[in-house]
Protein backbone atom coordinates (compact mmCIF):
# COMPACT_ATOMS: atom_id res chain seq x y z
CA UNK A 1 0.00 0.00 0.00
CA UNK A 2 2.74 2.42 1.03
CA UNK A 3 4.78 1.51 -2.03
CA UNK A 4 1.81 2.28 -4.28
CA UNK A 5 1.28 5.61 -2.61
CA UNK A 6 4.94 6.52 -3.04
CA UNK A 7 4.73 5.62 -6.72
CA UNK A 8 1.63 7.78 -7.05
CA UNK A 9 3.39 10.61 -5.27
CA UNK A 10 6.36 10.38 -7.63
CA UNK A 11 4.12 10.30 -10.69
CA UNK A 12 1.98 13.25 -9.67
CA UNK A 13 5.02 15.26 -8.67
CA UNK A 14 6.60 14.61 -12.05
CA UNK A 15 3.43 15.66 -13.87
CA UNK A 16 3.17 18.81 -11.80
CA UNK A 17 6.79 19.75 -12.34
CA UNK A 18 6.42 19.38 -16.11
CA UNK A 19 3.23 21.44 -16.19
CA UNK A 20 4.59 24.17 -13.97
CA UNK A 21 8.07 24.30 -15.43
CA UNK A 22 7.40 27.31 -17.58
CA UNK A 23 6.25 29.39 -14.61
CA UNK A 24 9.41 28.62 -12.63
CA UNK A 25 11.97 30.00 -15.00
CA UNK A 26 14.59 32.12 -13.35
CA UNK A 27 14.41 35.80 -14.24
CA UNK A 28 17.88 37.14 -13.98
CA UNK A 29 17.02 40.68 -14.87
CA UNK A 30 14.50 41.25 -12.10
CA UNK A 31 15.42 43.60 -9.32
CA UNK A 32 14.14 44.52 -5.88
CA UNK A 33 14.14 47.93 -4.23
CA UNK A 34 17.56 49.23 -3.24
CA UNK A 35 17.76 51.33 -0.10
CA UNK A 36 21.47 51.40 0.63
CA UNK A 37 24.88 51.56 -0.95
CA UNK A 38 26.89 48.89 -2.73
CA UNK A 39 27.92 45.74 -0.90
CA UNK A 40 30.71 43.27 -1.55
CA UNK A 41 28.12 40.51 -1.49
CA UNK A 42 24.44 40.57 -2.30
CA UNK A 43 25.03 42.41 -5.55
CA UNK A 44 23.78 39.78 -7.96
CA UNK A 45 20.31 38.28 -7.86
CA UNK A 46 17.88 35.93 -9.51
CA UNK A 47 14.14 36.19 -9.29
CA UNK A 48 13.37 32.57 -8.62
CA UNK A 49 11.12 30.63 -6.24
CA UNK A 50 12.53 30.56 -2.74
CA UNK A 51 11.60 29.93 0.85
CA UNK A 52 13.58 30.69 4.00
CA UNK A 53 12.48 30.12 7.58
CA UNK A 54 13.91 30.19 11.09
CA UNK A 55 15.17 32.68 13.60
CA UNK A 56 17.38 32.91 16.62
CA UNK A 57 19.87 35.31 18.11
CA UNK A 58 22.55 37.75 16.97
CA UNK A 59 25.04 39.43 19.31
CA UNK A 60 25.54 42.74 17.55
CA UNK A 61 27.83 44.53 17.91
CA UNK A 62 30.14 42.97 16.90
CA UNK A 63 27.96 40.36 15.20
CA UNK A 64 30.59 37.63 15.30
CA UNK A 65 30.00 33.98 16.15
CA UNK A 66 30.64 34.60 19.87
CA UNK A 67 28.01 35.61 22.38
CA UNK A 68 28.50 38.85 24.28
CA UNK A 69 28.45 38.61 28.10
CA UNK A 70 24.78 38.07 28.99
CA UNK A 71 24.80 40.97 31.46
CA UNK A 72 25.64 43.37 28.64
CA UNK A 73 22.26 42.70 27.03
CA UNK A 74 23.95 43.33 23.69
CA UNK A 75 21.92 40.98 21.56
CA UNK A 76 18.94 40.72 19.27
CA UNK A 77 16.42 37.90 18.87
CA UNK A 78 14.08 37.27 15.98
CA UNK A 79 11.95 34.99 13.87
CA UNK A 80 11.41 35.46 10.15
CA UNK A 81 10.32 33.72 7.02
CA UNK A 82 9.70 34.57 3.39
CA UNK A 83 8.15 32.68 0.50
CA UNK A 84 8.39 33.77 -3.12
CA UNK A 85 7.40 32.13 -6.38
CA UNK A 86 9.68 34.07 -8.70
CA UNK A 87 7.11 36.46 -10.07
CA UNK A 88 8.07 39.91 -11.35
CA UNK A 89 5.74 42.90 -11.38
CA UNK A 90 5.50 45.62 -14.02
CA UNK A 91 8.22 47.63 -12.30
CA UNK A 92 10.62 44.72 -12.40
CA UNK A 93 10.35 44.02 -8.71
CA UNK A 94 10.76 40.40 -7.68
CA UNK A 95 7.67 39.79 -5.60
CA UNK A 96 7.31 37.91 -2.34
CA UNK A 97 4.20 35.80 -1.86
CA UNK A 98 4.20 36.16 1.91
CA UNK A 99 6.41 36.36 4.93
CA UNK A 100 6.87 37.64 8.44
CA UNK A 101 9.46 39.30 10.62
CA UNK A 102 9.46 39.62 14.40
CA UNK A 103 12.50 41.42 15.72
CA UNK A 104 13.52 42.39 19.27
CA UNK A 105 16.64 44.46 19.99
CA UNK A 106 17.57 44.00 23.65
CA UNK A 107 20.44 46.50 23.73
CA UNK A 108 19.96 49.06 26.52
CA UNK A 109 20.94 51.88 24.17
CA UNK A 110 18.13 50.92 21.81
CA UNK A 111 15.37 50.88 24.44
CA UNK A 112 12.31 53.04 23.93
CA UNK A 113 10.66 54.18 27.17
CA UNK A 114 12.52 51.45 29.00
CA UNK A 115 11.43 48.63 26.69
CA UNK A 116 13.31 46.71 23.99
CA UNK A 117 12.92 47.94 20.42
CA UNK A 118 10.33 45.69 18.80
CA UNK A 119 9.81 45.58 15.03
CA UNK A 120 6.91 43.75 13.39
CA UNK A 121 6.57 43.31 9.64
CA UNK A 122 3.15 44.28 8.31
CA UNK A 123 3.90 43.24 4.74
CA UNK A 124 6.66 41.33 2.96
CA UNK A 125 6.66 42.55 -0.60
CA UNK A 126 9.88 41.52 -2.35
CA UNK A 127 12.35 38.64 -2.25
CA UNK A 128 15.22 37.77 -4.54
CA UNK A 129 17.81 35.02 -4.40
CA UNK A 130 21.38 36.25 -4.00
CA UNK A 131 23.83 34.49 -6.28
CA UNK A 132 27.15 36.01 -5.24
CA UNK A 133 27.50 35.06 -1.57
CA UNK A 134 29.46 32.43 0.31
CA UNK A 135 26.27 31.05 1.85
CA UNK A 136 26.49 27.36 1.01
CA UNK A 137 22.80 26.51 1.16
CA UNK A 138 21.28 29.73 -0.17
CA UNK A 139 20.89 33.43 0.40
CA UNK A 140 18.26 36.06 -0.23
CA UNK A 141 17.56 39.75 0.01
CA UNK A 142 13.97 40.52 0.96
CA UNK A 143 11.84 43.08 2.72
CA UNK A 144 8.67 45.12 2.84
CA UNK A 145 6.91 47.26 5.42
CA UNK A 146 7.06 47.15 9.21
CA UNK A 147 5.74 48.81 12.32
CA UNK A 148 7.72 49.92 15.36
CA UNK A 149 5.60 48.34 18.06
CA UNK A 150 6.93 50.67 20.76
CA UNK A 151 5.90 53.88 19.02
CA UNK A 152 3.29 52.85 16.49
CA UNK A 153 5.37 54.21 13.60
CA UNK A 154 3.97 52.30 10.66
CA UNK A 155 4.49 51.59 7.00
CA UNK A 156 8.28 51.84 7.24
CA UNK A 157 10.38 50.23 4.53
CA UNK A 158 12.73 47.50 5.69
CA UNK A 159 15.12 45.12 4.01
CA UNK A 160 16.99 42.08 5.26
CA UNK A 161 19.92 40.02 4.04
CA UNK A 162 19.47 36.36 4.78
CA UNK A 163 22.09 33.61 4.63
CA UNK A 164 21.91 29.83 5.14
CA UNK A 165 25.48 28.66 5.40
CA UNK A 166 25.05 25.06 6.53
CA UNK A 167 24.41 23.42 9.88
CA UNK A 168 24.25 24.22 12.66
CA UNK A 169 22.91 27.71 12.13
CA UNK A 170 24.74 29.15 15.14
CA UNK A 171 28.20 30.17 14.05
CA UNK A 172 27.45 29.66 10.36
CA UNK A 173 24.26 31.37 9.17
CA UNK A 174 23.77 35.12 8.96
CA UNK A 175 21.13 37.81 9.00
CA UNK A 176 21.09 41.59 8.72
CA UNK A 177 18.34 44.21 8.78
CA UNK A 178 18.00 47.88 7.90
CA UNK A 179 15.14 50.34 8.44
CA UNK A 180 16.27 53.59 6.87
CA UNK A 181 13.34 55.73 8.05
CA UNK A 182 14.38 55.41 11.68
CA UNK A 183 18.10 55.08 11.04
CA UNK A 184 18.16 51.57 12.38
CA UNK A 185 20.37 48.78 11.18
CA UNK A 186 21.99 45.62 12.41
CA UNK A 187 24.53 44.99 9.69
CA UNK A 188 28.05 43.60 9.73
CA UNK A 189 29.90 45.09 6.78
CA UNK A 190 33.20 43.41 7.63
CA UNK A 191 34.04 41.14 4.67
CA UNK A 192 36.16 38.98 6.96
CA UNK A 193 33.20 38.23 9.21
CA UNK A 194 31.58 34.98 8.11
CA UNK A 195 29.46 34.05 6.32
CA UNK A 196 28.82 36.96 3.95
CA UNK A 197 28.68 40.63 4.66
CA UNK A 198 26.53 42.46 5.48
CA UNK A 199 25.00 39.60 7.46
CA UNK A 200 25.88 39.15 11.12
CA UNK A 201 26.62 35.63 12.31
CA UNK A 202 23.94 33.88 14.33
CA UNK A 203 24.90 32.99 17.90
CA UNK A 204 21.76 30.88 18.24
CA UNK A 205 19.03 29.53 16.00
CA UNK A 206 19.11 28.75 12.32
CA UNK A 207 18.26 30.08 8.89
CA UNK A 208 16.94 27.41 6.57
CA UNK A 209 16.83 27.76 2.81
CA UNK A 210 14.19 25.34 1.55
CA UNK A 211 14.13 23.69 -1.84
CA UNK A 212 11.11 24.83 -3.78
CA UNK A 213 11.33 22.86 -7.02
Amino acid at each position, binding site marked *: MMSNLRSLAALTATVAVVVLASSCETRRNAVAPRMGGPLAHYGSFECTPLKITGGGRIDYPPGSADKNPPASHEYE*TFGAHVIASGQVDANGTCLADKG*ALEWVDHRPEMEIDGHPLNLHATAVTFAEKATDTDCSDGAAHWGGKLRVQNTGQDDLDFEVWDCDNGEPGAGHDGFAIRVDAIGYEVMCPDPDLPPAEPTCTLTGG*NRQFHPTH
Partner: protein
Amino acid sequence: MRIASMIILALMWVPASVRGQATASAESFGVSVSTVTVNQKTPSAVLPADGGTTQDQAGAVTVANLVTAQDVFAIVSGSSDDASDAVSNATLGSVSILGGLITADGVVAVATSTLGNSNADGSSLANLVVNGVELEDPAPNTRVDLAGVGYVVLNEQIPTDGGLTVNMIHVVLQQPTLTGLRTTGDIVVGSASSSVN
Protein backbone atom coordinates in the same frame (compact mmCIF):
# COMPACT_ATOMS: atom_id res chain seq x y z
CA MET B 1 -6.69 28.37 -16.10
CA ARG B 2 -7.91 28.49 -12.53
CA ILE B 3 -9.47 25.03 -12.85
CA ALA B 4 -6.25 23.70 -14.34
CA SER B 5 -4.29 25.15 -11.43
CA MET B 6 -6.64 23.52 -8.95
CA ILE B 7 -6.26 20.17 -10.67
CA ILE B 8 -2.49 20.49 -10.57
CA LEU B 9 -2.54 21.39 -6.89
CA ALA B 10 -4.80 18.41 -6.17
CA LEU B 11 -2.42 16.14 -8.02
CA MET B 12 0.53 17.54 -6.09
CA TRP B 13 -1.04 16.99 -2.68
CA VAL B 14 0.32 13.94 -0.96
CA PRO B 15 0.39 13.42 2.80
CA ALA B 16 3.72 14.33 4.38
CA SER B 17 4.03 10.86 5.87
CA VAL B 18 3.88 9.39 2.36
CA ARG B 19 6.31 11.90 0.88
CA GLY B 20 8.78 11.04 3.60
CA GLN B 21 9.01 14.66 4.73
CA ALA B 22 9.90 15.45 8.30
CA THR B 23 7.50 17.32 10.53
CA ALA B 24 8.68 20.41 12.38
CA SER B 25 7.22 21.63 15.65
CA ALA B 26 8.16 24.45 17.97
CA GLU B 27 6.78 26.23 21.01
CA SER B 28 8.09 28.94 23.28
CA PHE B 29 6.70 30.76 26.28
CA GLY B 30 7.76 33.29 28.85
CA VAL B 31 6.19 32.09 32.10
CA SER B 32 4.33 28.95 33.05
CA VAL B 33 2.95 28.20 36.52
CA SER B 34 1.25 24.96 37.37
CA THR B 35 0.02 24.44 40.93
CA VAL B 36 -3.15 23.19 42.57
CA THR B 37 -4.66 26.67 42.37
CA VAL B 38 -2.85 28.29 39.44
CA ASN B 39 -2.47 27.05 35.88
CA GLN B 40 -1.18 29.75 33.54
CA LYS B 41 1.18 30.02 30.59
CA THR B 42 1.91 33.42 29.04
CA PRO B 43 2.90 34.70 26.54
CA SER B 44 3.27 31.70 24.26
CA ALA B 45 3.81 30.97 20.59
CA VAL B 46 3.31 27.70 18.73
CA LEU B 47 4.49 26.89 15.20
CA PRO B 48 1.47 26.44 12.90
CA ALA B 49 1.12 23.09 11.17
CA ASP B 50 1.87 24.70 7.81
CA GLY B 51 4.93 26.51 9.16
CA GLY B 52 5.75 30.21 9.16
CA THR B 53 6.52 32.60 11.98
CA THR B 54 4.39 33.51 14.98
CA GLN B 55 4.98 35.51 18.12
CA ASP B 56 3.35 36.60 21.34
CA GLN B 57 4.50 39.18 23.84
CA ALA B 58 3.67 40.89 27.12
CA GLY B 59 5.07 44.09 28.57
CA ALA B 60 4.59 42.76 32.09
CA VAL B 61 3.59 39.40 33.49
CA THR B 62 2.43 38.72 37.02
CA VAL B 63 1.25 35.27 38.07
CA ALA B 64 -0.27 35.24 41.54
CA ASN B 65 2.49 36.06 44.01
CA LEU B 66 4.81 33.58 42.33
CA VAL B 67 6.35 35.32 39.31
CA THR B 68 6.79 38.81 37.91
CA ALA B 69 8.52 39.49 34.61
CA GLN B 70 9.03 42.43 32.24
CA ASP B 71 9.31 42.59 28.45
CA VAL B 72 8.49 39.02 27.60
CA PHE B 73 8.64 37.77 24.00
CA ALA B 74 7.94 34.34 22.53
CA ILE B 75 8.79 33.72 18.85
CA VAL B 76 8.77 30.57 16.72
CA SER B 77 9.58 29.97 13.07
CA GLY B 78 10.00 26.93 10.87
CA SER B 79 8.59 24.72 8.18
CA SER B 80 7.85 21.09 7.41
CA ASP B 81 9.17 19.94 4.03
CA ASP B 82 12.23 18.32 2.51
CA ALA B 83 14.48 20.53 4.66
CA SER B 84 12.42 20.90 7.80
CA ASP B 85 13.55 23.23 10.53
CA ALA B 86 12.16 24.61 13.76
CA VAL B 87 13.49 27.47 15.85
CA SER B 88 11.92 28.87 19.00
CA ASN B 89 13.04 31.55 21.39
CA ALA B 90 11.73 33.13 24.56
CA THR B 91 13.23 36.27 26.08
CA LEU B 92 12.50 38.12 29.29
CA GLY B 93 13.80 41.28 30.92
CA SER B 94 13.78 41.51 34.69
CA VAL B 95 12.37 38.45 36.44
CA SER B 96 11.50 37.79 40.07
CA ILE B 97 10.35 34.39 41.29
CA LEU B 98 8.91 33.55 44.71
CA GLY B 99 9.22 37.03 46.11
CA GLY B 100 12.80 37.55 44.98
CA LEU B 101 14.15 34.15 45.95
CA ILE B 102 15.31 33.91 42.33
CA THR B 103 15.99 36.98 40.18
CA ALA B 104 17.52 37.67 36.78
CA ASP B 105 17.50 40.62 34.41
CA GLY B 106 17.91 38.91 31.08
CA VAL B 107 16.65 35.45 30.17
CA VAL B 108 17.09 33.97 26.71
CA ALA B 109 15.94 30.47 25.76
CA VAL B 110 16.66 29.25 22.24
CA ALA B 111 15.91 25.79 20.85
CA THR B 112 16.83 24.84 17.30
CA SER B 113 16.13 21.65 15.37
CA THR B 114 16.83 20.29 11.93
CA LEU B 115 16.50 16.63 11.04
CA GLY B 116 18.82 14.72 13.38
CA ASN B 117 20.23 17.80 15.09
CA SER B 118 19.05 19.97 17.96
CA ASN B 119 20.82 22.47 20.17
CA ALA B 120 20.29 25.21 22.73
CA ASP B 121 22.88 27.60 21.29
CA GLY B 122 22.12 31.22 22.12
CA SER B 123 20.48 30.52 25.48
CA SER B 124 21.70 32.60 28.43
CA LEU B 125 20.91 34.00 31.88
CA ALA B 126 22.01 37.46 32.94
CA ASN B 127 22.64 38.57 36.52
CA LEU B 128 21.04 35.46 37.94
CA VAL B 129 20.75 35.37 41.72
CA VAL B 130 19.42 32.29 43.52
CA ASN B 131 18.84 32.48 47.24
CA GLY B 132 21.19 35.45 47.50
CA VAL B 133 23.98 33.79 45.54
CA GLU B 134 24.95 35.10 42.11
CA LEU B 135 25.34 32.34 39.55
CA GLU B 136 27.12 33.09 36.30
CA ASP B 137 26.42 31.09 33.17
CA PRO B 138 25.15 27.90 34.84
CA ALA B 139 25.95 24.66 33.04
CA PRO B 140 23.06 22.72 31.52
CA ASN B 141 20.81 21.08 34.13
CA THR B 142 22.35 22.80 37.16
CA ARG B 143 20.26 21.96 40.23
CA VAL B 144 20.09 24.18 43.30
CA ASP B 145 18.07 23.18 46.38
CA LEU B 146 15.68 25.76 47.80
CA ALA B 147 15.12 25.03 51.49
CA GLY B 148 11.45 24.79 52.35
CA VAL B 149 10.43 25.31 48.72
CA GLY B 150 11.89 22.50 46.60
CA TYR B 151 14.61 23.00 44.04
CA VAL B 152 15.40 24.83 40.83
CA VAL B 153 16.96 23.49 37.65
CA LEU B 154 18.85 26.15 35.70
CA ASN B 155 19.50 25.97 31.97
CA GLU B 156 17.46 22.80 31.89
CA GLN B 157 17.90 20.92 28.60
CA ILE B 158 15.62 17.95 28.01
CA PRO B 159 16.02 15.81 24.88
CA THR B 160 12.71 15.02 23.24
CA ASP B 161 11.62 12.92 20.29
CA GLY B 162 13.54 14.55 17.46
CA GLY B 163 14.26 17.69 19.42
CA LEU B 164 14.98 19.55 22.59
CA THR B 165 13.24 21.53 25.32
CA VAL B 166 15.15 24.34 27.03
CA ASN B 167 13.83 25.72 30.32
CA MET B 168 16.16 28.44 31.59
CA ILE B 169 14.63 28.50 35.10
CA HIS B 170 12.52 25.57 36.30
CA VAL B 171 11.39 25.63 39.91
CA VAL B 172 9.92 22.42 41.29
CA LEU B 173 7.73 23.14 44.30
CA GLN B 174 7.72 20.43 46.96
CA GLN B 175 6.13 19.76 50.32
CA PRO B 176 7.31 17.29 52.96
CA THR B 177 5.20 14.25 53.64
CA LEU B 178 5.54 11.35 56.05
CA THR B 179 7.39 9.37 53.38
CA GLY B 180 9.47 12.09 51.78
CA LEU B 181 8.79 15.02 49.49
CA ARG B 182 5.77 15.51 47.27
CA THR B 183 5.84 17.72 44.17
CA THR B 184 3.08 20.31 44.37
CA GLY B 185 3.80 22.45 41.32
CA ASP B 186 6.17 23.83 38.71
CA ILE B 187 7.29 27.29 37.70
CA VAL B 188 9.06 27.61 34.36
CA VAL B 189 10.54 30.90 33.17
CA GLY B 190 11.95 31.16 29.65
CA SER B 191 11.11 28.02 27.70
CA ALA B 192 11.84 27.06 24.10
CA SER B 193 11.13 23.74 22.42
CA SER B 194 11.77 22.49 18.91
CA SER B 195 11.74 19.19 17.07
CA VAL B 196 11.93 17.72 13.59
CA ASN B 197 10.95 14.11 13.06
